[in-house]
């Protein structure tokens, strides 16, 4: 019996050893040419192609400029803009004017001296930290501050919104000037403005709510300036000073910016102009079709870009990017005044419009990530934040899903996922804030950028999808 079992064990172990030998190989290309040439083993050689959009045009979406520090989402480093600028990025220069709106929060208490003070013993000023400058930096800016005539809903105001103000007599002193290069500017308010508003300023009832109900805020303008200056929405304040020693600050609560573009200058030749404040963006559209030309990829001469319409049925993608380059060199070339400051935007925003079909998957289904839906029809695409300001770049992580899912649908006789991709300037507080922040609206800005719309020597090339594809 024992011998039998030993035999059996040996056999089973030996059999298992033989059986478990899965295909281990020293694989080579020996035999690659075996068989008729038409049926020989081949293909599968990847290649990278730049696919420009079939349609490229400008689009407009008025950007958000309003903010309320008490409301979510909390937007750190928000700002409001004041001033006017003539930017030589176009010929004639691009003339943009910004009006700032600021409302302050009430106080639940005041120092006794201020709470009981008479108007003559008090002075008032606006204290505004400077966080942005677009324009001539060495010229002082004359500013005017006006009272808003009614409570303004600034929370989600867009750049085309304006709020009524009492423009008869400014609240600020006549000689109010600021230097745009200062880190903190102060705007002195007139003594009679303090006298007119003393009871409101000293009202601390209801934890300051009474003040807020009776104090609509300010409109700040600088119509004759040569620069647009941005002020911190979070750290600005209205300050009352008693006898030059005792102060009480009314912290900023709400802010908004109204931006107007006074000239519609054409973009320089070979470029498309994107404007931050006016909300002028770029609309890209790739057209997919059912063209079935395998040779279109494999035989396309260098420099002759294939259209996207042949790809879904002829190739599959290994890598994809959507890139909208910015021609920073051309922008610098068009700035002759060394004192003219034009910051480059620290970010962009790309919105993809879903095809309005019932069977078009949701944003989260397409990309496997929640929080991309901007509205029912739009997905905000995360960008490679480090690519800014040189480009708006949708990285492989999202662009691959976007194109490959569209390819699959087209091969199945369906339509692509998205109709249009819109690109806007969305200035950030930091150039490397992470891809998550690229979903959010940018800070109020007036800066423009130039996007090349054709291939030229030394230029970064036009907007394009760069696909690494393998022919089927």
């Amino acid at each position, binding site marked *: 019996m024992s*011998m039998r079992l030993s035999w059996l064990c040996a056999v*089973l172990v030996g059999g298992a050893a033989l059986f478990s*030998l899965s295909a281990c190989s020293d694989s080579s290309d020996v*035999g690659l*040419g075996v068989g008729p040439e038409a049926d020989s083993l081949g293909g599968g*050689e990847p290649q*990278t192609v730049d696919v420009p959009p079939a349609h490229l045009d400008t689009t407009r979406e008025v950007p958000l400029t309003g903010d309320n520090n008490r409301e979510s989402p909390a937007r750190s480093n928000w700002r409001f803009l004041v001033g006017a600028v003539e930017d030589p990025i176009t010929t004639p220069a691009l003339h943009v004017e910004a009006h700032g709106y600021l409302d302050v929060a009430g106080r639940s208490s005041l120092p006794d001296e201020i709470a009981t003070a008479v108007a003559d013993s008090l002075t008032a000023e606006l204290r505004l930290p400077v966080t942005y400058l677009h324009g001539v930096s060495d010229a002082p800016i004359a500013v005017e501050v006006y009272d808003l005539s009614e409570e303004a809903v600034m929370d989600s105001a867009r750049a085309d919104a304006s709020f009524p103000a009492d423009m008869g007599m400014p609240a600020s002193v006549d000689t109010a000037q600021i230097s745009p290069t200062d880190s903190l500017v102060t705007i002195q308010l007139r003594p009679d403005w303090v006298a007119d508003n003393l009871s409101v300023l000293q009202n601390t009832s209801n934890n300051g709510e009474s003040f807020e109900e009776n104090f609509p805020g300010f409109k700040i303008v600088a119509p004759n300036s040569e620069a647009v200056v941005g002020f911190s929405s979070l750290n600005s304040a209205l300050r009352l000073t008693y006898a030059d020693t005792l102060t009480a600050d009314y912290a900023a609560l709400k802010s908004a910016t109204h931006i107007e573009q006074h000239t519609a200058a054409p973009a320089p030749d070979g470029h498309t102009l994107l404007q931050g404040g006016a909300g002028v963006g770029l609309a890209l559209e790739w057209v997919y079709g059912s063209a079935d030309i395998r040779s279109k990829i494999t035989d396309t001469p260098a420099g002759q870009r294939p259209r996207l319409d042949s790809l879904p049925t002829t190739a599959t993608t290994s*890598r994809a990017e959507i890139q909208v380059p910015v021609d920073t060199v051309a922008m610098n070339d068009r700035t002759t005044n060394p004192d003219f400051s034009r910051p480059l935007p620290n970010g962009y925003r790309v919105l993809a419009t879903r095809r309005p079909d019932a069977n078009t998957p949701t944003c989260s289904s397409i990309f496997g990530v929640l929080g991309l839906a901007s509205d029912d029809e739009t997905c905000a695409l995360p960008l490679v934040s480090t690519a800014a300001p040189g480009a708006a770049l949708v990285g492989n992580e999202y662009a691959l899903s976007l194109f490959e899912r569209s390819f699959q649908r087209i091969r199945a006789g369906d339509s692509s996922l998205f109709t249009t991709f819109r690109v806007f300037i969305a200035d950030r507080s930091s150039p490397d804030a992470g891809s998550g922040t690229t979903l959010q609206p940018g800070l109020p800005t007036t800066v423009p950028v130039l996007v090349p719309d054709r291939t030229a020597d030394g230029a970064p090339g036009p907007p394009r999808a760069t696909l690494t594809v393998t022919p089927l």
Partner: protein
Amino acid sequence: MCDGAMRVSLPPLPVRVLLVAVALLAAAPTAHGQSNGEGTIYSRFGLGSLSGFSSSQSQALGGGAYGLRSLNYNPDANPALWSDQVFTRLSGSVGMRAVRAEDNRGNSGRLTSGTVQALQFNFPLNERTLGLGLSFQPYSRSNYKLTTTDSTDVPASGQVGQARYERIFSGSGGLQRLRGGLGYRVNDRLRIGASADLLFGVIESRRRTEWPNTQALRDVVVSDGVQLSGLTGTVGAHLALADVLSADDALSLGASVTMPAFLSGERYRTLDEDLARDTLSVQRGDVTLPWTARLGAAYQPNERWTFVMDGLFEPWSTFSTSFSSEGSSPTTPARFPVGGTSTLADRWRLSGGAEVVPAGTDNLAGYFAQVAYRLGAYAERMYVRPDSETSLYEFAATGGVSLPTSLSGTRIDFNLTAGTRGQTSDTLVRDTFYGVSLHINFGERWFQRRKLR
């Protein structure tokens, strides 16, 4: 440890062996999925490499033995040989084969793989008169793997870098054959048998573009497959003659014919793999496989020696298919069979072998005298000719030992095979292969009332 554990907890040995065999049978589909059979680029053509396993004894004697009758084996190739059964028999075979391919430039590649060769179950319905046989084994196997390496420029975030990629061309799958039939002894000289054969399976070729040095690029897998199933049947006869050349010698003649098989199914092209597989296109079609004729002779001059000589013929030139012959677009499946029907040729096979059991039927002889020693060889014209012109041949030597066990009906066999196929002219390659296999042939009286003597 194995010994002790079995002594304590396992049921009696025959039952244990049966359990192991049943487990092997149950695991067969999975096992097949893991294995890749015999690796050769020639398995890309036709239906893949044909298997043709009949029994472990047959394999060691060159792969024929269509006329050899034995109590210890129930050869699969001729159902007439299932008539003379005494034992209920369960057989399982596993093997490993290594293939080295060489082209005319002296380049070579290697592929080693393990596989289940066959599972067979036979039992007598009427001892020595009527027997039933069931078997499950590969009919054909596609198994090849070729790799090329290159690099290409891939821009990422504005920077262009070189990325290395591999193109891997591989074949897998094949047709399986499930056979069931009866063998009947008409008289002392004549036996006949018939079986029904179900053929089914998927033959798939893949082209994979991989990026081994980066995760940022998605691998691309394009698969062309054909899924087929259908029925055929095999009839066989066996003639046993005694005292032919001398007293107590025996001459046996066996023949079987497998009818043409009519298979239907679909061919497809897919993108990606596993759950992400995206079907690009599907086409339905039919395939007709040729008939197969086998003829063999076995001569036993005495109880110690056995000699066999066999031949097989399959007219693959009659192969036909309704699958359209040309791929018209990138999403259309590759042509089936690869290269068209002109790449198929009539197949013939000649084999021979000898077996010696030094002890003959003396059960009291020493152990190694009771071992069966076998040698064989075969020559085959392959049924594929990839360039549509050059006939390819396969030559191999076979051998093995059959070890008796304390169970009179049970033997454990080890077989060896070594040979070459193809030639290194033009684009063709020569395969040099060797293999080793293990066979458990378990036999015991079941379902039969023991008679008092």
